[in-house]
């Protein structure tokens, strides 16, 4: 079943989620059971059962980022983006989530959009993203 995660990542990108139908399709493709595919899909946070936004905004909640004001930035992001932690906006434009260490403690508190590091979260950066992300 090598390559299942890569295929699932592609499905997640296309559908913004991995549905039970997707899982059944992948099971056929990889000659395995739907149960196995479901197990994989629900184990990894990269895959979601419900559609995420067109853009996924992530804010790191690792220790170094907490020391540099991550909680304050998370509150600001929720207000500015209009989405609570772990939720997706009603128009499907964006999702916001605080994430485990993003491996960017040198620009704490680290902010990513669609797995792209944007740098340290500031009010100005979040204002910009709120306006620009379509």
């Amino acid at each position: 079943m090598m390559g299942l995660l890569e295929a699932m990542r592609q499905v997640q990108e296309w559908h913004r989620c991995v549905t039970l139908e997707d899982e059944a399709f992948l099971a056929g493709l990889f000659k395995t059971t739907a149960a196995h595919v479901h197990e994989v899909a629900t184990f990894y946070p990269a895959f979601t059962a419900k559609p995420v936004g067109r853009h996924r905004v992530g804010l790191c909640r690792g220790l170094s980022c907490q020391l540099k004001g991550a909680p304050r930035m998370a509150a600001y992001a929720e207000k500015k983006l209009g989405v609570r932690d772990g939720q997706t906006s009603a128009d499907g434009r964006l999702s916001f989530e605080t994430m485990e260490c993003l491996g960017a403690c040198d620009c704490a508190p680290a902010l990513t959009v669609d797995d792209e590091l944007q740098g340290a979260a500031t009010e100005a950066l979040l204002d910009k993203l709120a306006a620009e992300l379509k």
Partner: protein
Amino acid sequence: MIITRHFDEPKLHELETYRKLGGYEGLSKALAMKPAEITEEVRKSNLRGLGGAGFPAAAKWGTVPPADKVPGPRYVVGNCDESEPGCFRDRVHVERAPHQVLEGLLIAAYAIGAKDAFIFIRGEYGRPHRALQTAVKEARAARLIGDDILGRGFSCDVMLMRGGGTYISGLDTALLESMEGKKSWPRQPPPFPTNYGLMGFPTLVHNVATLAMLPHIAARGGEWFAKIGTPKSGGTMIYSVSGHVEKPGVYEFPMGTPLRAIIEAAGGVAGGRGLKAVIPGGTSTPPLSADDLDLPMDFDSVRGKGSFLGAGGIIVLDETADMVEVVRLIIEFLSHESCGQCTPCREGSVWTERILERMLEGAGRPGDPANLERVAGNVTGRTICALGDTVGIVLKAYLKKFPEEFAALAGRNESVMRQEATANG
């Protein structure tokens, strides 16, 4: 400096620049040697696994069974699933010098006779993944990857794979499960991956920083490399320094460099404040005290202080840090990332997280520190992988080092009541 030497070169990620600066000369030299000769150089170099375990690299290679004993394919996997809080050097490294990682990967593949090599990179590393993709394409076009590399008769292909966002996938056996398209539950060794790895074939898994040392060892010799470090640990260590420092970033120092020099290179404690503690190797490693600054930073010395060098993720904590909150964050992370396979880890991490939360909310009970200690003891040593051990080891270390901070929260209600009772006569 060995692997970060040219990091300031803006086009280091491009093949042309990398080659101009001596890149792929190590591979060229290695391919002119016999595999056993390379292993011998690595043995002389005292290179140890830089992903955290510090296991001697040559000894690991020695456990790969020879082809006449165990026929069939063997694989090399570069581990770039950097997820330990406080560690980010692999991200910076792969983005700036992807060819250095590929070159090391190919040398390791040649040394153990692998015809397929992989790099497993965490899913959140978008830009570093693209840098690797471009580098693989460039290298393939230049006949550095594929058939008959550099016209020396050695063939090896390289494939990139991305993780699904779990910390546990960074552990070698869990990583292999993930590559095989399964949930990344760690395997119970033995057998170790060098005997039973990817799809059951012998597989050498190394952190990408360890691999990146190989071109330099091949080019300049094992003895040169050994001289840079300590007698038991050759070469350099690459640190990610963050937290309360002026200049967080990636710093490379010879093995055995005092902790003080590394923190000073990062500009010292931010705002000129006092130092409380230093986490030496990512949040899974017990903290060092402010008076440990002269400690030589290498696997064995840090171990002597009851902690671990880990993957070199140094987090500096100044005098304002609340250590109960720090350990709560660490345990919260571990409980979130516990894969759920072993009950002591799955349950112990959540229970202790809840106790710490309650203490910080002002509802601490006098028995809490002892209870934390007891649960910690019931997790360590009772799980398949080190994540469970970490829950216990880290909790115990913080309890031992900062007892007054735990006591202040544990006894709060009762002691206030007692004081009032005494004051009222």
